[in-house]
């Protein structure tokens, strides 16, 4: 690391371990169990709060795009609206259906939520504020987030309903296809970073963000990532798995009450995860905006804490993805697949070669 701008570690949590083992005299395994519980509760809280915030964020933005006010009755500026929604969902009846495959029907929400919670835990919020820090972090993230497709396919198949079957197949084809583009643009950036560790990738960007460092290929990879990420979350112009005018609600038509709530939660969290990954790969994660040799500017930027940078970038990118949704009309399945396989994939392969050339000839900044 040649960075001159290493920030102080935001949270030092080793004190808790000392407290548990030395003051309370717990056995190491018991201490680790308690700590795992604490981590789990922490993930749950942040996950749920973020999902609720995102529901509010999207509803307000969607209202603004349509010249409406949006939720404004429950709490100040409607801030408690999504809490009310979640509570409503919790007290709705979970209907028992007759002709479904019960085991798979119950399993599907677990897979969808597990995929998003595990991917969520990989994101770095600040220097050292990160749950799972593998040296193959970004690869792990792609791997676990693809479990979500399984959940959606199972949900559609096990519901024994024509709409859900069509919805889940569309969703499967779409998510699986666009995963290639995500994978390839991540490979492009891994080439530039030289590491798959999420912390390492962010550390590499301490002098300049990759979107500026990587010349043209980084820019192309960013655009492709944003398009593919929008498709991965089943949103925006790519929401044909749940095209409400033709398939009622797509793959989660038969789910009721809180059962449906999980798909809803995971969808919003996936929006956050996609923006989070884009911000850590291209916009420097929690790194402040640094411009080489502008030392005064860099020092001012260092005063803003890392998690504000990270969340700010995430919300900005989510804004762009929500903007897509309210701007473009829905695609047809053949257009969707043609966009991926005939445009994004060849461009992406070409872009990878371009990035290799840029690195080999040292053209990046």
């Amino acid at each position, binding site marked *: 690391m040649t960075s001159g701008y290493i920030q102080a570690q935001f949270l030092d*949590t*080793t004190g808790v*371990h000392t407290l548990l*083992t030395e003051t309370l005299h717990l056995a*190491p395994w018991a201490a680790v169990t308690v*700590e*795992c519980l*604490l*981590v*789990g509760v922490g*993930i*749950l809280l942040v996950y749920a709060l973020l999902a609720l915030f995102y529901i509010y964020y999207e509803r307000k933005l969607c209202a603004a795009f349509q010249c409406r006010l949006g939720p404004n009755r429950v709490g100040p500026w409607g801030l408690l609206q999504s809490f009310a929604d979640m509570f409503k*969902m*919790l*007290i*709705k009846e*979970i209907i*028992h*259906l007759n*002709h479904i*495959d019960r085991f798979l029907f119950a399993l599907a929400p*677990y897979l969808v939520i*597990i995929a998003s*919670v*595990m991917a969520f*835990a990989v994101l770095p919020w600040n220097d*050292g504020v990160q*749950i*799972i*820090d593998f040296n193959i972090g970004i690869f*792990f993230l792609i791997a676990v987030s693809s479990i979500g497709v399984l959940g959606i396919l199972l949900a559609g198949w096990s*519901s*024994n*309903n024509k*709409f859900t*079957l*069509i919805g889940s*197949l569309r969703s*499967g*084809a779409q998510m*699986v*296809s666009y995963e*290639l583009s995500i994978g*390839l643009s991540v*490979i492009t950036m*891994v*080439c530039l970073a030289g590491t798959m*560790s999420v912390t390492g990738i962010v*550390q590499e960007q301490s002098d300049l963000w990759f979107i500026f460092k990587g010349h043209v290929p980084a820019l192309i990879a960013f655009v492709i990532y944003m398009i593919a990420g929008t498709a991965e979350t089943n949103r925006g112009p790519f929401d044909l798995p749940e095209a409400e005018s033709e398939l*009622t609600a797509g793959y989660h*038509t*038969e789910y009721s*009450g*809180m059962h449906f709530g999980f798909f809803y939660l995971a969808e919003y969290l996936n929006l956050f995860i996609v923006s989070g990954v884009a911000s850590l790969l291209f916009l420097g994660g929690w790194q402040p905006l640094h411009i080489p040799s502008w030392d005064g500017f860099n020092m001012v930027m260092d005063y803003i804490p890392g998690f504000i940078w990270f969340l700010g970038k995430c919300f900005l990118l989510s804004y762009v993805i929500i903007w897509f949704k309210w701007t473009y009309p829905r695609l047809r399945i053949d257009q969707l*697949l*043609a966009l991926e*396989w*005939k445009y994004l994939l060849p461009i992406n392969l070409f872009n990878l070669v371009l990035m*290799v050339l840029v*690195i080999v000839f040292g053209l990046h900044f």
Partner: protein
Amino acid sequence: MISTAIFGIQNSGVLAITALLTGVALVFLALWIAKMISPRSFNPQKGEAYECGIPTRGDSMAQFHIGYYLFAILFLMFDVETVFLFPWAVKMRELGVDGLLSIAVFFGVLVLGLVYAWRKGALEWK
């Protein structure tokens, strides 16, 4: 690089399993609470599929368009090949020219596969 141990947990695998169990716990607890506090009523009509109002004809776990299957196969091929690109991408600078040449051959096969599928019409939605 700064070590990012959380509390005393040094092993990221433990944390990954914690995250997985957190996901399971979230679904389980929320469903349990929902079952506790939600109302229940019984009506034979409620168990039917939500389609169009009249009883569903036949089984819905039926045949579907072959195109989905074709794209799944194509995806499998490309995804496995991108997995092989990842280790090379990390070690690209160390592997140097040898690595570049061998990955170029591999990459050529990948592109040929795409061109073949394209020419065969596998990318058309019929």
